[in-house]
């Protein structure tokens, strides 16, 4: 019989206390797991129990991957990294005598072929090809500057050509002539040099005006296409205007 005249089984069960506000110190102690559930503020006994469980000791299944972690450490850890570094690791002594520092690793530095760079004869072949290309390009450049076109016979057929099949076209180094002014200038020049215009036919200015500035470069005046002769050798058929003939690098 209770004090109110009722049996204890009939008494209304007192529910759990409603959680109230917490101060910073209590929150700090709760999250650090320093509050036992029995000592927790009203309504926070379950919270204290849950937080203690969440920060509890390790369970066996959580430590099941130790071997795998050690394998990763062996493969990608400092020792493995030094092993990949190769000779550099062998030269450097370990700071403070830490064991394992400077130990040569199982792997050595990969060779040039493994790094994607050709080695030995292949490298020499690449270098030789590159040099040949540079020399050929330089020769073509010099030939273009000297008005020397490979494979083009001289229209005059004069002796004293620099080489068989290489003919120097002697032309005055005139500045670039473009547009409408080219026609006027061509007419003036045609009256001044009658000999040359008779050979070239006075087509220099007209061609330059028709083709724009593609052939007008300093030191490389517009050229006139030589008139085909009826007795020209068959090499003239394969000759092309200056600039369009490019040597092919043979490997």
């Amino acid at each position: 019989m209770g004090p109110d005249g009722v049996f204890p089984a009939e008494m209304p069960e007192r529910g759990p206390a409603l959680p109230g506000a917490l101060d910073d110190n209590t929150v700090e102690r709760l999250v650090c797991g320093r509050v036992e559930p029995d000592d927790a503020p009203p309504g926070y006994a379950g919270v204290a129990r849950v937080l203690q469980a969440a920060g509890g000791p390790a369970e066996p299944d959580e430590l099941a991957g130790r071997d795998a972690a050690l394998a990763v450490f062996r493969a990608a850890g400092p020792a493995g990294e030094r092993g990949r570094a190769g000779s550099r690791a062998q030269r450097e002594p370990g700071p403070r005598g830490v064991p394992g520092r400077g130990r040569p690793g199982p792997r050595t530095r990969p060779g040039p072929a493994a790094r994607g760079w050709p080695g030995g004869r292949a490298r020499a072949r690449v270098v030789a090809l590159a040099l040949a290309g540079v020399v050929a390009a330089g020769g073509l450049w010099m030939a273009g500057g000297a008005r020397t076109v490979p494979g083009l016979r001289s229209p005059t057929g004069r002796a004293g050509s620099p080489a068989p099949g290489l003919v120097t076209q002697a032309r005055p180094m005139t500045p670039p002539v473009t547009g409408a002014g080219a026609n006027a200038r061509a007419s003036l020049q045609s009256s001044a040099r009658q000999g040359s215009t008779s050979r070239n036919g006075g087509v220099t200015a007209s061609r330059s005006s028709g083709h724009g500035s593609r052939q007008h470069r300093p030191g490389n005046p517009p050229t006139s296409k030589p008139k085909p002769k009826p007795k020209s050798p068959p090499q003239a058929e394969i000759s092309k205007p200056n600039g369009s003939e490019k040597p092919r690098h043979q490997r």
Partner: protein
Amino acid sequence: MIGPSFAAVLAAAAGGDEAAFGTLWRDLQPGLLRYLDALAPGAAEDLASETWLRIVQGLDRFTGDERAFRGWVFTVARHRAVDRWRRRSRHRDELVPADALTGLPAPDDPAGAAVDAISSRAAVALIATLPPDQAEVVLLRVVAGLDVAQVAAITGKRPGNVRVLAHRALRRLADRLTADTRVRGAV
């Protein structure tokens, strides 16, 4: 926590000592799994492996005390979880292993499962039902053992916000546990 011998353990691990690395791993792996299990259910093991790979690769370049080391480890883990979340957000379908589902609390009785079984996994699962920012703050404080400043640095929040989130999280947990107790008492 390893304690005063942490510096020697870290130096030995950086020098390639497997036993020292095993000490570090044994100290941090449980908290790492619990934290990642709340952030990415079902992928905690994979993310922990990725985290340890990064830790191992940068171990010899780390300088700092144990507190900083723990903060670094959980920062890396959080980045891995965020990366995974971004990858998964591009692919809506997600395969969840059946084992991961058994660890999750049922929606009708999360608090009961946590309080009754009181296993660490169930407790973490209950914390994971909080809003994400609150759950992360509580887990970083409880599971990882980080202080307010470290949690603020990792989550990109101000320390005051971290404290407020912790207050709200504990209050929400208490409300949920109290309500569950009342429901079970009424039944």
